[in-house]
Structure formats: structure tokens, C-alpha cells
């Protein structure tokens, strides 16, 4: 499989502080990569760099996926959920790449929206305002938007925080299905049980440097932090 995202000796800085140094690697279509590391290790910074929000200090991000098909699921706290918008309206806003600000959604889009909500178990909540949803329901609605967007590169920042167990199962299943359809998923995770079930590969960020693992080759400290294992020095196993 071809790499759809390549990092070439990437260095990223937040203001004057160097956060990531000389990170290289490739992300393939249909792969799920877990991004792990302690708080402040640069996980969110890397996500910003990949989305093109933060310009690299050195090195390059080469992405085959156009901006319109890159989706970013931020942490829930980053969103203003008091906004008067229904689940359906949020899901339908994923039509942005094809419809922009002005084009009217046609019956085909509404049918697709219905199918997406069905897939995520949201059909009964269709007209519910976002402010009245539980954490798990919101996360499903947000994932619905990325499905609607037909994203080919999906970045998620701790999507399982504040989410009930049943929804975690549904989200894991949906993400696996998306990967099987060729979507490349990059997911910030802390729980190593979820990581084992979901990820094909692991990128461990620590003190500004990245180390690549397979989920099997990782060993975990009792604290839940990954310990050094036999890292594959260069990105993918291709």
C-alpha cells in the first residue's frame, strides 16, 4: 500500500519552544496508528502539524489527501456545545467539501446523512440539540460528521474520554470499518487495552522524539506508560 502521509525529518515548535525534533515516518491508507506519550510530549502539536495549522520549523509533511478530506475530531472540551444545532445538522455539515457554504443539500445527501446516523445509532436523536446529548452521543455525532465528509485521513484526539463502554465499542468498530474502507486513522490514546484492540502501529512520542512500535512489541509500565521495547527505527513495515 502506498503511503498517503509522509513526515520527513519534521521539527515543530510552539512559539519559541521546540516540541518535536526530526520525526520521520509514513502512514498508509487503511492503517490505524496510535499516538501515545505523556502529557506535553507533543501529540497535539503533531496533529496540528499534520492538519497544516502549524507550519513546520524544519522538514516536511507530505500529504496525498486534499484538505477537504482530512478530518480532525478535537477533544470535546474544545467545542461550544451550547450552540443551537441538532444532531442531524451537525452530521450534515460534513457535506462541506462538496457543498461549501452556499449549495443546498439534496435528497441524496439527506439519505446519506440518515444512513450515517443509523450506522452510529443516532436515528432516534436526529432532532435533539447538541447541548442535551451525553458525552458518548456527542462523540458519535462528531464521528458522523467525519463519515459524512468521506474523510480519507482521520485524526482523533482522545475520542474515548467521557464516553460510556457501549459507545467505545461502537466507535472502535466504526473506526475499524473505516480503516477497512481505506481511511487512514491517527488516534491519540492513553488506554493500552483500547490500543491493542485498535491500532496497527504505535508512534510513541517522548521528550520531543518519536519511536515506532507494533502493538505487540510494546511493553507497558504498571503506570500505564509505554516502556522502551524493540523499536523499529524507521516508520512503516513496508
Amino acid at each position, binding site marked *: 500500500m502506498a503511503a498517503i502521509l509522509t513526515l520527513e525529518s519534521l521539527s515543530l515548535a510552539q512559539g519559541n519552544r521546540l516540541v518535536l525534533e526530526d520525526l520521520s515516518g509514513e502512514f498508509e491508507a487503511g492503517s490505524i496508528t496510535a499516538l501515545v506519550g505523556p502529557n506535553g510530549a507533543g501529540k497535539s502539536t503533531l496533529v496540528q502539524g499534520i492538519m497544516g495549522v502549524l507550519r513546520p520549523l524544519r522538514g516536511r509533511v507530505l500529504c496525498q489527501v486534499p484538505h477537504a478530506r482530512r478530518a*480532525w475530531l478535537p477533544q470535546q472540551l474544545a467545542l*461550544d*456545545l451550547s450552540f*443551537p444545532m441538532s444532531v442531524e445538522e451537525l452530521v450534515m455539515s460534513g457535506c462541506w467539501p462538496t457543498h*461549501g*457554504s452556499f449549495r443546498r443539500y439534496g435528497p441524496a445527501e439527506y439519505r446519506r446523512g440518515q444512513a450515517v446516523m443509523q450506522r452510529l445509532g443516532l436515528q432516534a436523536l436526529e432532532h435533539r440539540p447538541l447541548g442535551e446529548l451525553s458525552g458518548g452521543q456527542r462523540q458519535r455525532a462528531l464521528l458522523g460528521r467525519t463519515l459524512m465528509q468521506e474523510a480519507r485521513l482521520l485524526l482523533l484526539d482522545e475520542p474515548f474520554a467521557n464516553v460510556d463502554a457501549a459507545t467505545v465499542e461502537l466507535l472502535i468498530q466504526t473506526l475499524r470499518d473505516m480503516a477497512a474502507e481505506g481511511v487512514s486513522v491517527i488516534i491519540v490514546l492513553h488506554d493500552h487495552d483500547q490500543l491493542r484492540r485498535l491500532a496497527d502501529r504505535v508512534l510513541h512520542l517522548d521528550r520531543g522524539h518519536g519511536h515506532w512500535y507494533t502493538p505487540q512489541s510494546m511493553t507497558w509500565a504498571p503506570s500505564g506508560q509505554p516502556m522502551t521495547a524493540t523499536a523499529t527505527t524507521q516508520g512503516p513495515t513496508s
Partner: protein
Amino acid sequence: MIDWLISPLLDFGFMRRALVAGLALSLVAPPLGVFLTLRGMSLVGDAMAHAVLPGVAVGFLLAGFSLPAMSLGGLAAGLLVAGLAGSVSRLTGHREDSAIASFYLISLAAGVMLISLRGSSVDLTHVLFGSILAVDTTALWLIVGVSSVTLVVLAAIFRILVVECLDPLFLRGQGIRGGAVHGLFLGLMVLNLTAGFQTLGTLMAVGLMMLPATAARFWSTRLEGLMGLAIAIGMLSSVGGLLLSYHAGLPSGPCIILLAGAIYLLSALFGRYHSVFARWRRRVQPILPPDAHG
């Protein structure tokens, strides 16, 4: 009664023009207000209304009581303050609202100073509080033009504004620059404040924007409901305020805004959501046994 309601609006040219002006403003200013409240910028509208004043004053000094000159001046001053505030906040990293607050105070003082240099206090009263007599045909064209432009632009950026309020990063990922949309939105707001000052006065033009929007929040939790209700409240206040102003011989601006204010207060007391009454009613509910209905 019908005579009291209808005949002033039909019999006098200036009332007809003021009515059309009021309805045109009520069609676009309240939706802008709804977005201002949703974006947490309720007081920014107020600050911008003050910022418009020196431009109006310069127009007044140069061309006398000429509405096009005063409107153009007001528009320039409003856009200048919005632009300066935006640049200062971007260059210094300070929050934009503190920059807007600083610039509008400078602007307001400059405006009052300029007006006092020339002109009597009657002129100042006109500029500050508006006058239905001021709406001549030129002014009417100006107001209707501004409303039409605002309506079209608002329709074009509506989805962007909605999506951006909820999740700015989504649009950034899609390659839409939030700053440009924000600037366009502030521009629309200034445009409407300038259009509103002839009937309402510079200081109260923002009232027709904010009061219907804040009142509507007590009646609806849906965006289209908020917009529709805010427009209806705005139109009701405009028509009612004009009639009140005509019959009681009061300035039109305060009449319209006080009427909108009364609707806001009633909504806050008796509205369907989050009002005092709704909260009071909700507080007694838990006392009922959970299976009271059988």
C-alpha cells in the same frame, strides 16, 4: 383604534418612509444580533455603535446634516475601529474585546468633541437619538440597500458562521480562514449600525440588533426559531415604536428600543426557556412522585 394604528402610517410620507426603514432594518439587524449573542460578542455590538460616532461627526462637519456624508463617515469610522482592534489584538496577543473597548472609547470621545466644535445641541440630539423626520428618500434608499446587501452576504456566509461558532477548527481544516469571515461579519454589523442611526440614533441602533435577539433566546432553542422570532420582535418594536413616537410626540429611537426592551423583560420573566417563570415552575416539579401519572 384602527384609525390610531393605521392612519398615521398611511397619511404622512415621513411615517411611510420611517416604517419601511424600520421594517428593512428589522429584517437583518436581529439575525446579526442572534449571531453576536451566540458568538459571545453581545457587548461588541454596543462598542461598535459608539465607535461609529466620530465618523458621523466628521461627515456632519464637512457636509452639514447630510445623511449620505454622515453614513459614509460612520461606516469608515466603524470599519477603522474594527480593523485597528483586530490588528492590535493580533500583533499584541491581547484579546480582541479589550482592544475594541479601548478604541471605541477613544472614538466616542473624539466624536462628541467634533460635534461640539460646530453645531447646536439640537444637532447632537438628532445624531445621538435619531429622528423619524430625518428619513428622506435618499436615506430610505440607503437603508434598503444596506438591508439587501446584508441579507445576501448573510445568506452566503450563513453556514460558515454556524459551523464556525460550533467548531472553528473544522473550517480551518477545510481551508477557510476564520479571520476573514470574522472581519466580514464585523463589517456587516457596522454597515447596519450606520444604516440604523438615522431612525434610531447612533447609540441606540444596536438596540434593534441585540434586544430582539436576547429576547428570542427565552422562546426558542433552535437557530431558525431564534432568527424568525428575533425578526418578528424587531418588526413589532419598530412599528409600535413609530406609532408611539408619533402619537406621544417622543423621539423615535428611544420609543422603538424601549418597546423592544419591554418585550425582552417580559420574555425574561415569562418566556418558555430559562425565564424566571420557567425556572420557578421547574423547581416545583421534583416534589411530584415519579409515577404520578399512573
